[in-house]
């Protein structure tokens, strides 16, 4: 592992955004631009996934979907046990944070792809499908944990369980949130459209992709830096969790991708990144709805202010190094 692995535009633009806020620069993006860029990126990655899916074999693809579901359901439960039982973090905050760590960050995944591309490392296409699948299960687990938390609190206070958000409305939120609709929708379009007809949109989504990712990460660098002052509210247990949970997640991803799916270095590395990353786009609004008792500043600070920068700067080269050592 050497420093040159960090010398890719996306990572450096992230650092630039972070630095700009630290030195109190007046650099600012127009309102809503990050949301617009994330729509482009999600469609771009969806199209890439759809093209990959159209060339994929059925059984490995099915296996990847199963692995994604296992990771999506198991990781948040592990995170919840860690936070609530070992870390003694409040039950609602634990449930909401756990849901974020069970879901994935498309931004981190895209940096990982840029990282592999910069080194000319090939990878299986199945992790692209896993990205789309892994957005949702953690939201469902988050709701189930919240229901458990409310029943525990009701027992503690000798109250009846207060009215909670219905499973139906949260399932609706989990399966129809914007990121999932865009990813799966774009994937389906690219899967259905013949390759010749897709040519007209490919330059827009493929050639511009890394440039748009750089812009997106510039903005995310600024957003991450804004969250720095919130760390003192989070406390040592949560900060430790925000750094160690991605590493544990990556190791679980490693086991799944290497021993279960039998991927190459590139594929193993991408699954590690998926399992290590935490959602900061799809899950926060879902948890606002599902677990209003949790403090949003904890999960937003941890995912965007700590885990995302950690994964981009330290995690990605580290996970690649581990994947290379085991698989290569």
């Amino acid at each position, binding site marked *: 592992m050497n420093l040159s692995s960090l010398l890719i535009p996306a990572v450096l633009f992230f650092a630039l955004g972070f630095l700009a806020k630290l030195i109190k620069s007046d650099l600012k993006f127009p*309102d*809503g631009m*990050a*949301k617009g860029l994330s729509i482009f990126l999600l469609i771009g990655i969806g199209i890439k996934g759809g093209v990959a899916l159209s060339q994929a074999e059925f059984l490995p693809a099915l296996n990847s979907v199963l692995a994604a579901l296992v990771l999506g359901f198991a990781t948040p439960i592990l995170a919840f046990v860690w936070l609530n039982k070992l870390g003694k973090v409040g039950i609602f905050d634990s449930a909401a944070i756990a849901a974020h760590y069970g879901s994935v960050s498309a931004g981190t995944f895209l940096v990982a792809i840029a990282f592999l591309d910069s080194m000319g490392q090939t990878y299986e296409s199945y992790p692209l499908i896993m990205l789309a699948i892994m957005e949702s299960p953690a939201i469902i687990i988050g709701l189930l944990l919240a229901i458990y938390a409310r029943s525990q609190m009701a027992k503690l206070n000798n109250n009846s369980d*207060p*009215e*909670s958000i219905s499973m139906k409305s949260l399932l609706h939120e989990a399966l129809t949130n*914007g990121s999932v609709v865009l990813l799966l929708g774009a994937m389906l379009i690219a899967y259905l459209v013949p390759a010749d007809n897709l040519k007209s949109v490919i330059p827009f989504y493929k050639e511009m992709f890394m440039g748009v990712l750089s812009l997106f990460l510039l*903005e*995310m660098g600024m*957003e991450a830096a*804004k*969250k720095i*002052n*919130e760390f003192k*509210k989070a406390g040592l247990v949560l900060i430790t969790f925000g750094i160690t949970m991605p590493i544990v997640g990556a190791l679980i991803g490693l086991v799944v991708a290497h021993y279960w799916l039998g991927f190459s270095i590139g594929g193993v590395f991408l699954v590690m990144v998926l399992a290590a990353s935490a959602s*900061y*786009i799809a*899950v*926060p*609004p*879902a*948890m*606002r*709805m599902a677990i*209003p*008792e949790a*403090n*949003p*500043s*904890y999960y*937003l*600070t941890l995912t*965007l202010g700590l885990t995302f920068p950690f994964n981009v700067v330290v995690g990605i080269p580290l996970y690649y190094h581990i994947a290379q050592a085991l698989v290569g």
Partner: protein
Amino acid sequence: MEYNRKQVNIIVNSALEAKMVRLANRVGVSGYSITPMRTGQGSTGLQTSSSEGDSNILFMMIITFDKMEQMIAEIQKIKDRSYPLRVFINDTYVMDEKDFH
């Protein structure tokens, strides 16, 4: 000139926007306006509009006193479920009374 309506302002996370619209429709208010809040800080930490879960809106209605009381009762039910809504109400004057109820 006397104040003839109440201006009800609700600061709430954008994830709850649809819920607020349904509530206003259920109570039967004649209209509302929704404005995005670019950034802010309060008891739930810093909000920077980096994503939907990190974005607040201002949900504003100008309504009669009776409708305001109904809205307050409904909003209280949502607050009782721990949703962090911030509500403030002003007396206001409107020229076209029939349009604001």
